C-alpha cells in the first residue's frame, strides 16, 4: 500500500479502514494511496531486497543511515538469501531497520523499513533459509 516505501499487508489486514491512523496502527501508511496486489508466487525476501535497493538508488547520500544503511541492507538480505547465518542476518536487518527508521533525515531512509519489516513480519516463511523453503514445497 502506498508506493515503494509502503508496507505489505497480508490478507488478514485487508479489512483495515482506509485511514491514516488505522494504517499507522498496523505499521502501514497511506503514502500516495496506490495499491499493488501480489499473488502467492511473489518472493517477499526479494521484495524486501527491492525496497533496500530502491533506497540505495534513490538516496541523496546526506545522512548516514540511508547512505550506507540501504547498501548494507541489500548485502545483508543477499546473505540471507544465500543461507549464510540466517538467524543472525534477520537480527541485523531488524536492527538496521530501527536505525534507518528513527535515524534517517528524511522519509526515504525513514520509510524504507516499512516494506522490509512488513514483509519480514507478515511473510516470515519467505525469509527462511532456502533448504527449508524447498522442503516445505
Amino acid at each position, binding site marked *: 500500500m502506498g508506493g515503494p516505501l509502503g508496507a505489505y499487508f497480508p490478507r488478514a489486514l485487508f479489512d483495515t479502514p482506509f485511514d491514516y491512523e488505522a494504517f499507522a496502527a498496523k505499521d502501514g501508511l497511506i503514502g500516495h494511496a496506490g495499491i499493488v496486489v501480489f499473488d502467492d508466487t511473489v518472493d517477499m525476501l526479494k521484495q524486501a531486497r527491492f525496497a533496500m535497493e530502491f533506497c540505495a538508488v534513490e538516496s*541523496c547520500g*546526506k*545522512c548516514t*543511515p540511508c*547512505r550506507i544503511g540501504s547498501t548494507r541492507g541489500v548485502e545483508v538480505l543477499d546473505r540471507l538469501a544465500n543461507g549464510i547465518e540466517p538467524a543472525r542476518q534477520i537480527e541485523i536487518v531488524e*536492527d538496521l531497520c530501527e536505525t534507518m527508521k528513527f535515524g534517517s533525515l528524511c522519509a526515504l531512509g525513514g520509510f524504507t523499513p516499512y516494506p522490509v519489516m512488513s514483509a519480514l513480519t507478515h511473510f516470515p516463511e519467505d525469509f527462511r533459509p532456502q533448504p527449508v523453503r524447498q522442503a516445505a514445497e
Partner: protein
Amino acid sequence: MCFVNEMDYGTPASKSDKSVTLSIDGKDVTVPEGTSIMRAARMAGIEVPKLCANDMVKAFGSCRLCLVEIEGRGGTPASCTTPVAEGIKVSTRTDRVQAIRRGIMELYMSDHPADCPACAAGDCEMVAMAETVGLKEIRFGREGANHIWPAHDGVANPHFMEPDLSNPYFAYDASQCIVCSLCVRACEEQQGTFALAVEGRGFESRISAGMHEPFLESECVSCGACVQACPTGALREKSVIEMGMPEWSTVTTCAYCGVGCSFKAEMKGEEVVRMVPWKEGKANRGHSCVKGRFAYGYATHKDRILNPMIREKITDPWREVTWEEAFAHVAKEFRRIQYQYGRGAIGGITSSRCTNEETYLVQKLVRQGFGNNNVDTCARVCHSPTGYGLKTTFGTSAGTQDFDSVDHAGVVMIIGANPTDAHPVFASRLKKRLREGAKLIVIDPRRIELVRTPHVEATYHLPLRPGTNAAILNALAHVVVAEGLVDEAFIRERCEWDEFQDWAEFVMQPENSPEAVEKFSGVPAETIRGAARLYATGGNGAIYYGLGVTEHSQGSTTVMAIANLAMATGNIGRPGVGVNPLRGQNNVQGSCDMGSFPHELPGYRHISEDATRAIYEAMWGVKLDDEPGLRIPNMLDAAVEGSFKGLYIQGEDILQSDPNTKHVAAGLAAMECVVVHDLFLNETANYAHVFLPGSTFLEKDGTFTNAERRINRVRKVMEPKNGYADWEVTQRLAQAMGLDWNYQHPSEIMAEIAATTPSFAGVSFELLEREGSVQWPCNENAPTGTPVMHVNGFVRGTGKFIRTAYIATDEKTGPRFPLLLTTGRILSQYNVGAQTRRTENVVWHDEDLLEIHPFDAENRGIRQGDWVKLASRAGETTLRAHITDRVAPGVVYTTFHHPDTQANVVTTEYSDWATNCPEYKVTAVQVTPSNGPTEWQRDYDEHSRRSRRIVHVEAAE
C-alpha cells in the same frame, strides 16, 4: 608542557539577547534564543556525540549521531539542527537514541579502514566515537561495498579513489572520508571559496575539489579550513602524517600580513608540527590563509644565516665571526663614522616584521645611542600617508574599527586593495557579510577577485585610471553634497561646520563633478553617481583601503578625501562603519606606533614637543634632538652626496622593496658600514658590511599590533637558532655602544613603552595574558582597549574637513612609455617573498608575471607566456606576460615577490607630497617582446652570487 584545547560547542553561538530555559537530562539550562539543543547541552557540560557539526559552521544534521528525545514530541530530532524552546525536557541518553547511535557507528565503521592510520595516531575521531557509543562489533563486516580497498579478489573497486597528494601541505584520502561535508561547509561559510562539493550521491558520495580535480589544480586556495574541520583522517596536514601528532601547543600571532591572525603553534619538542588558527583570536575568529597556516617552513630553511658575518668591502666574501666581534666592530665603525662625518651620519631602520618591543629598541638606540632622529621604517613606503591623513582629519594615525565591525556593515567600499590576495582572512570575513546581503563598491584599476567571485558581486566597480583616486573621491563627495545626502546632524555635532561648508563648496566646483572626472579617470559618470548614492544611503558604510590609495603622489590627499567622505555621510564612530587601512605587514601598525618615524616619538608625538621629549630625556638620561631626522629616501640621497655613511637595518629589504632600485643600490654602495639584521642574506645584504642573523617569530616573546590596532602576543616556542632573539641583538649592540640597557624579558620593554606612551598606558603582558589581546588606546579611560574609535567625538576634538584638490601625477604616459604600470600582490606570496619563496608556496607562484590586456598584447605581438621587456625611464626588466582582461587597456600590472624580476628597477622616485611614500602604483612604461633577462638582471644575478660568498671559520680544535 600544556596543550591548548578549545571547547567545541557543536554549533555557532546565537546572537539573540532573549534567553530560554530548558531542561537537558534533568539539568536546567538558560541560553540565548536560537541556540541549538546540542550547544545548550555543551554549555551545561553534557556532550552529545556528533561527527558532522562544529561551532564554526551552520548545523547540517547529516551524521545523525546527535539525536535526542524531547518529552511530548515524537521521533528523535537531531540536537544540532533543533533550536531550544522554553520549558522543553530533553533526554540525550535514552536507550532508543543510544541504540540508534550504535547502529550508525556500525554503519560508519563498515566503510572505514580497520587499520586507519589517523585513528591510530589519534587524529581521527571514528574509533573513539565507536567506543563512546558502545559499539562492540561490526556485524556487516568490511567485505561489502566500500571505499577502503583499491581492489578485492583481484577485481578493481569502483568506489576506491587514489589519495590526492597534489597540495604541498595536506593530503586527501577518500578512503577515510565519512562525507560529513564539514569540509564543504568550511570552504563555503568560513573561507567563501566554494571549491569543494559532494560529488555523486547515495553510497557513491565523495568529496571532490573543483570539477573532480586534484586539490592543487582546483579553485582551492589552501586556507586549511577543511583540514581543520575534518573529523577523520581524510584531510590531514602532511606534516602531521610525517611527524605524528603534536605534544604541546601555545597561542601566538602570525608574522605575515596586517590581519594578525592568532594561531596555536602545535609542537613536538622544538619542532612545529602544525599551525592551527585559534578560535578565540579576535582578528581571525578561527580562520587562516595558506601563508599563516602552512608557510612557516622558512623558519628552518637551510638559507637561514645563523652566525654573524663581517667583510671589509662589499666585493669581499663574508667572514663568519663571533657575536662579540660583530658587536664590537659595528660599535667601533659607527663611532668612527660619527667622529669623522658628524653625529647625523648614521641611522637605523626599524622593521615592521619585528615585535613592538624590538622596534621600540631600535628607535631608542638611534635616539639615545646615535644621538639623532635618523630612524625610519618600511611604513614609509606603504602607509605613511594613512598616518598623516588620518591624524590630520580624525586625530589618530590608525584605522577606526575592529574587524568584527564588518559584520554590521551595510555597504562596503574597497579602494585600492585586493583583500582576497593580500588580506585573505579579512576577505573571508567580508565575503561572509556580503553573502548575507551587504553591498559592495570596488574602486580599483584592476578587476580584483571581489568584483565577481562565487556568491559575491560588486554592485559597482570603478575601474579608474591609476593615479586618479583623489579625483574619483572628490567626485563621489560632489554627488553626496549635490544630492543632499550628507549627514548634517553628525557634521554639526562632531565637525567644524564652517570647515565643512568650505569643503562642500570645494567639492561642488565643476571640475569635481562626475562628468568632469569621467574624462580623465575613465569611469563613467553614472557609475560614480550610483556608487556615491549607494555608499551614502545603503546603511552603515564602511571603507577599507590599501596601498592602491597610499602609494601615489597624492596618497595623503586621497586618505584625507576618504576621511572627508566618511565624515560627510556620518560613517564614523560606531560598529559597521569607519575608515580602515588594510595594513600590509604583521606589525606595520606597531612599528609606526613605536616611534619609528624620524619626526615622531612613540604614540605619534612630534619630536618638537618639549613635554614629550622631557619624558624620554628623564628616562634615558640624554638630551634628544628636537629636529626630525632623515627619512629613508633622504638617507639614501645623503649617502650618495657623501654625508650619510652608516645604517643599521633590522628586518627590511630596502633594495628589493623600495622604489628605483638603482638609486637604492647607489646609496647603499656609498656607505661605509651597512649593518643588515635579517634571517637571510636578502638583496640589501648584497651591499652590507656586517650581517647580524635574526630570529623568527617562533623564537621570541613580544607583541605585534595588527591593522585594527590590536596588540597580540607573540610567544616563543623554540630557542633562537641564531642564538639571540632580535631584541637581544639590538640590546647587545646598544651595550657595545656604551648604553646601559638591561632588559631581561620583552615584558620589561613593554612596561617602559606603557610608562612613557599615553595610548599604551594600560598595556602589560599580564593584561594581554588575561584578555588575550587589546586594541589601543588602552589606558585608564579604556582599561581593556578600544575596538571602535571616535565613538562620542573625534580624538582631535572635531573632525577636520580638508580640501583635497586633485593634481595629476608628473608621471605621465607619452609616446615612449604609453602604458601605466601598477603593482600588487598574490595570495601565496608575501611582500618581497623572502619567507614565502622559501616554502612550498612557490607551487602557486614561482615567478612574477606581467598582466596585460589582450588589446595591448595584440598590438605588440605578445602571446600568452612570452618573455617581455618592461621599461620605464628609471630602468627595465623582463618577465613573462599573462594576457587577461582583469586589467583595462592601457594598464599593466605585476607583483614584486621575486628578486630576479626586480619590478622596482622600473618604478620611479616620485612620491607622496606629504610623506615621501613612493608612487609604486603608477609608472609610465612600455612593453615589448624580449628574448630573456636584461643586462641589469644578468649583472645583478652575478653580483648577488658573488656577494653571497661565505668563508666559514675553521671549527675550533
